[in-house]
């Protein structure tokens, strides 16, 4: 069985700017693969190359065994896509757009589209121009899912969705996986990738720096912890294995926790903690530090 996605030294440069540098990536069929990286890392460039919107400077890619350039139509017959910035025909209703896309695929999946829209609580009779950004995102998701593709390529798919709809989308993606669909999901949101993906590729400055199982990533994850003490504590009190002191200012400390959590908690409990907080860490904070440009540190 051909991999869902395979790239061979895929490179894209715009003049002097190297947007993607020799990407070697394999996504097996049936995976929910998270493509993780900060903004500008090359995620969208990769997706646009896979869908043949842009052409590589060198290298090539295959989707489900088809060359993405020479067999682009065959690829698009089997792929559903949600772009990072959803743009739709504002003068159409949601229903009319789904009907158009259904006809373009020569399919009979409109009813499936209506079911999905209903599930995501999306009113199809309204003009797209009157939709909120969340509704547009939902419609784009419905359009991508409607033909029951073999590969779903989703570029930041939860942008603009409220948490309940996000949760529903994760459920749908797992259902799609059970159906046999592969999901390629680009994101800069690690918790999202953890929730939904089973494998993760990490891209940084146009280079793939790691491909890991999600479980492995979880063990490498940095957690941020902010502590407020009832009295000032000494730096030495916070020195322990697996803890990096980011800041210490009298009664207040910010820690990056990398080690075995139970051991650390046992040590912390001895300190005069008044309050604690787990601020949301940035992707760079949480785990980019594990990877340098050449690979794992």
């Amino acid at each position, binding site marked *: 069985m051909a991999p869902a996605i395979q790239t061979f030294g895929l490179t894209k440069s715009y003049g002097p700017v190297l947007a993607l540098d020799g990407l070697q990536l394999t996504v097996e069929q049936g995976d929910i693969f998270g493509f993780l990286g900060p903004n500008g890392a090359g995620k*969208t460039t990769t997706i*646009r190359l896979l*869908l*043949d*919107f*842009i*052409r590589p400077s060198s290298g090539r890619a295959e989707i489900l065994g088809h060359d993405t350039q020479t067999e*682009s*139509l065959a690829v*698009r*017959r089997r*792929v559903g*896509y949600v*772009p*990072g*910035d*959803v*743009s*739709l*025909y504002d*003068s*159409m209703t949601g229903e009319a757009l789904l009907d*158009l*896309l259904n*006809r*373009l*695929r*020569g399919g009979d999946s409109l009813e499936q589209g209506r079911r999905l829209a209903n599930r995501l609580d999306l009113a199809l009779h309204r003009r797209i121009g009157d939709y909120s950004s969340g509704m547009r995102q939902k419609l*784009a998701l419905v*359009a991508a899912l409607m033909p029951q593709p073999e590969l779903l390529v989703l570029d930041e798919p939860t942008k603009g969705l409220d948490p309940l709809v996000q949760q529903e989308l994760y459920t749908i993606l797992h259902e799609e996986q059970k159906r046999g669909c592969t999901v390629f999901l680009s994101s800069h949101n690690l918790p999202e990738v953890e929730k939904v993906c089973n494998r993760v590729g990490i891209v940084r400055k146009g280079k793939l720096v790691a491909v890991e199982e999600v479980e492995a990533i979880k063990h490498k994850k940095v957690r941020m912890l902010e502590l407020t003490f009832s009295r000032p504590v000494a730096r030495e009190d916070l020195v322990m294995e697996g803890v990096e002191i980011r800041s210490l200012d009298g009664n207040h400390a910010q820690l990056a926790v990398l080690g075995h959590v139970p051991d650390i908690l046992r040590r912390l409990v001895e300190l005069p903690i008044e309050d604690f907080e787990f601020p949301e860490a940035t992707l760079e904070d949480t785990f980019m530090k594990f990877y340098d440009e050449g690979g794992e540190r």
Partner: protein
Amino acid sequence: MSLAVFRANLWFHRYTALAWIVGVGFLAFLVGALYRSAGGPDYLKLIDQMPDALKASMGLDPNTPLSAGDGLSVSIWLNTQFLSYGAVLFAIYAVVHGTAAIAREAEKGTLDLVLSQPIGRSQFLLWRELVFVVSSAVLALATALTLVAGLAVIGETTNIPYLLLTVFQAWLVALAVAGYSFAFSCLFLSTAKAAAAAGLLTTAFYAIDIVARTVERVSWLGNLSLFHFYEPQHVLDTGELSWIGIAVCGGVAIGATAAAAVIFQRRDILT
């Protein structure tokens, strides 16, 4: 399945097309209806006294008989008041439609939506161009019919087959203009830049034609202009179409469309 693209785009384009049809149709109707009141002896005298070069710029040969019976001939009136610039009107429509076709989709981001579906870029382009072919044909037909209707309300008529041939010739020029407008649209993926390029080229063609018609020693320049092959007075009077003109306009339309397809096929669609 690609017919869906055609139908959808025809629908998207309905208001623009309708506005052009109503606007140009109304103007044509007015020209037809005003033949007797404005095209009287004074107008005949005015045309007659025009310098030959100015007459030539309207496609009037110095030997063309201006009057029919006791007044200005209908064909001279229709040509000088409307048809001599009819091809320019159609060309503007072609520039407006052609330059926006692909570029506006790219600017709005909807090109991603379409091109992520199993439809080839060339196929998409051709269906879009077919929307122009159909809407401009309707515009041309509506123009001819409203001219005839305008004349009819004052009890006048003209040779309808000859008028249809004249409008057909203007439509051919528009197809050629649309061809390179589509090519610029694909090349720049920017409506403004494409419109500037196509507008400039069309203006240059028109200016070359005027110069070639009015300055005899550079009349050869006319061969470089699409408008040179639009001869409304001659077609209205004789019903003869220039096969070279058909070949040139058709050739430019097909060649430019092929170029547009190649450009569109090869270029990156950036966000």
